């Protein structure tokens, strides 16, 4: 904050009654003092200074004095409680928390989660068979995607990390385009430039994923700030894992969103592992939710495998974030059932028993299915025919994607800048001349022609 010093010497020289003396940061030489008069009406004031009170007057904190030495104990044994609506068997615990969504809505939740699961199985296999180069599954975290996506408006912006395909699926991104991106074929909206699962869709307000972790977090704060100024009832949600939350960018994003009052939901998927690194090697505090208060943010921890808990928390956070222009932090506890990616074999660092527990005993999809079957909304026959139909739909999209050519190599050189530059134009011509001369060494036939 600015320190204001009245200088009567200045007053004589300039004939004005109020001056500020400033020193440029880091350049302390006397000839760099700026003497300038300016209005301070726009400058934020600290609390009024009153030395008669026996209360701390420091600008940095609003607190009382204490006369005994005691360190505040971080509470990791009994941490922030986990909000849930259903028990592990899908029974509603507190009826007032049941969002009482329609059968149609709940069936849609279920079908989106299972469709995602099916697509994951098929694309994971396709990587194993050498058809695509890489893949990341979402096993176990489908509840976090669908629950949160359902609680947002379609115009809300989504900044993701890489394990949020269900959000995109919920919003209606077609299977063909998921496949096109993974195959990097000529239908890919991203023009074949990124590794698989780096989806993006402007129409669905899902900002294209990038590999560096947590970079989206301060960006989400900036986007939320811009949307706040537009005043069109739009929020931003920013997904990241508990590992990415260790990055400096996470700290930056949290702090900026709180100080600049952004309508933003931070959604942390705490799934227990960052590749092979378990949470007890990622942090020592009480997870990510406990950091929120440190930034002045309202925070909650939810059961990420309970799609209704995720839904309720996100819905309320969104409502208040936009109404009150402040960020919210939701830490969704869940478990990464699959490997980190196709480049990972998680049996190297965790037991099969542990994985099986989550797969069999506490899975978001089975929980929701129990909820539906208890209401007579879903039968064994429904399950069988849906599994068959969804697999068929995915396979058809898969086969279409397989047959499609790759994009024209011209697209190697475009979109670096909005306009083509002379230098890139020369490089592109040089590339084509070279490929023309040595064409038997380049897979030209797999790519679309001019």
């Amino acid at each position, binding site marked *: 904050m600015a320190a204001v010093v009245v200088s009567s010497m200045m007053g004589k020289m300039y004939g004005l009654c109020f001056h500020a003396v400033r020193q440029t940061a880091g350049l302390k030489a006397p000839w760099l003092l700026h003497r300038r008069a300016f209005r301070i009406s726009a400058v934020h004031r600290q609390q009024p200074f009153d030395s008669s009170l026996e209360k701390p007057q420091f600008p940095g904190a609003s607190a009382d004095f204490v006369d005994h030495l005691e360190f505040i104990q971080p509470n990791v044994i009994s941490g922030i409680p986990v909000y849930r609506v259903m028990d592990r068997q899908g029974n509603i615990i507190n009826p007032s928390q049941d969002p009482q969504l329609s059968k149609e809505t709940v069936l849609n939740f279920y079908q989106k989660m299972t469709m995602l699961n099916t697509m994951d199985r098929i694309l994971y296999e396709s990587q194993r068979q050498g058809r695509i180069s890489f893949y990341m599954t979402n096993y176990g975290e489908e509840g976090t995607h669908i629950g949160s996506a359902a609680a947002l408006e379609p115009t809300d912006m989504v900044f993701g990390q890489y394990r949020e395909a269900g959000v995109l699926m919920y919003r209606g991104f077609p299977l063909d385009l998921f496949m096109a991106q993974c195959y990097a074929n000529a239908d890919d909206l991203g023009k074949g430039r990124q590794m698989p699962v780096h989806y993006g869709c402007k129409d669905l307000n899902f900002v294209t994923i990038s590999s560096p972790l947590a970079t989206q977090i301060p960006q989400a704060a900036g986007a939320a700030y811009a949307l706040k100024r537009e005043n069109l009832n739009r929020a931003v949600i920013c997904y990241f894992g508990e590992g990415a939350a260790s990055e400096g960018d996470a700290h930056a994003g949290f702090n900026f969103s709180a100080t600049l009052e952004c309508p933003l939901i931070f959604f942390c998927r705490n799934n227990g592992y960052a590749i092979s690194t378990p949470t007890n090697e990622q942090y020592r505090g009480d997870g990510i939710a406990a950091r929120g208060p440190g930034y002045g943010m309202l925070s909650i921890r939810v059961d990420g495998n309970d799609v209704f808990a995720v839904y309720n928390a996100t819905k309320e956070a969104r409502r208040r974030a936009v109404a009150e222009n402040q960020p919210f932090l939701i830490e969704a506890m869940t478990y990464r059932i699959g490997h980190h990616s196709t480049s990972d074999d998680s049996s190297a660092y965790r037991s099969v028993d542990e994985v099986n527990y989550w797969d069999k005993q506490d899975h978001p999809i089975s929980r929701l299915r129990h909820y539906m079957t208890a209401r007579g909304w879903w039968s064994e026959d429904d399950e069988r025919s849906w599994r068959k139909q969804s697999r068929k739909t995915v396979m058809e999209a898969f086969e279409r994607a397989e047959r499609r050519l790759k994009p024209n190599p011209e697209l190697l050189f475009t979109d*670096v800048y909005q306009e083509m530059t002379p230098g890139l134009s020369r490089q592109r011509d040089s590339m084509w001349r070279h490929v023309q001369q040595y064409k038997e060494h380049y897979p030209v036939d797999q790519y679309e022609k001019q």
Partner: protein
Amino acid sequence: MAAAVRFFIRGANSRLSVGTGTGGSLGAALLKLSPSCSSRSKTQRRHAAHFTYQPDPVPTQYVIFGEDVAFGGVFRCTVGLRDKYGKDRVFNTPLCEQGIVGFGIGAAVAGATAIAEIQFADYIFPAFDQIVNEAAKYRYRSGNLFDCGNLTIRAPWGCVGHGSLYHSQSPEAFFAHCPGIKVVIPRGPMQAKGLLLSCIADRNPCIFFEPKILYRAAVEQVPVESYTIPLSEAEILQEGSDVTLVAWGTQIHVLREVSDMAQEKLGVSCEVIDLKTILPWDVETVCKSVVKTGRLLVSHEAPVTGGFAAEISSTVQEECFLNLEAPISRVCGYDTPFPHIFEPFYIPDKWKCFEAIKRMINY
């Protein structure tokens, strides 16, 4: 536009005389020489050329932010803007460069025109990941679905007489290696306004380095109305026939003096080129000049190894090899961190440039 820029004259302690560019179509330019120390006339010392840009078009989604931007900034570049445009458009951020740039990227992606200030170019490195991995690649990696072309990053740049390691750096070479961003450096107030407005209007993320020594040392009569100076176009400030001198920012003024010295003492005619945009740079203008003169000297304060002179040198020898009469000369900072008390020995001053010209002529 949302930014106001102030430039002050400093009568004292300036090692350079500031001239103006050729091409006076934008109005008369006032030449001010600041030759020697004069602590006497205080009225002369504080003379501001203050200009604000035209009123914003609607919608007013232009925002400027960074550390200490609200009160006016440590170099006074944003004085008066908060009162004029409001605290939601001109605001302080927490002290975090990676946050400033990340936030700026996000705001730009969401449609705002974001002008992010980094307090000193020396402190831009925490934001390097956001600039190189995110801003520069946003359009390309999304297949042009998303971009942060509305982002401009401004930072004070270059030596200032006493800045030492962390208030003197010229990091343009780090960013020159990054396709997808533009890097622009003005040599004076008139260029600064036109180039900055071009950066803001440009649909690509731009880094605008402002020579901090010129905040106080340079004065020009700057047109009040809005104007742009094209990016990626180098400017020939002075035509010549014997040797091409290339620089950007503060060093242009050094080369102008060197050019006069060379003419006077050696009878050598120098062609002085202000590169202005480091990335993408104007290869054609520089090469055309070297084809004519046969000799090239590139000069910058940044350390010589891996500095941008290396890129220019490499390209010119590819394009103009048979035209060269002498090896290309780079007169740059030494490969040390920028020193404090040794600054007079470190900087590529006019004597070093003069000596390099002499060697090239006599090669």
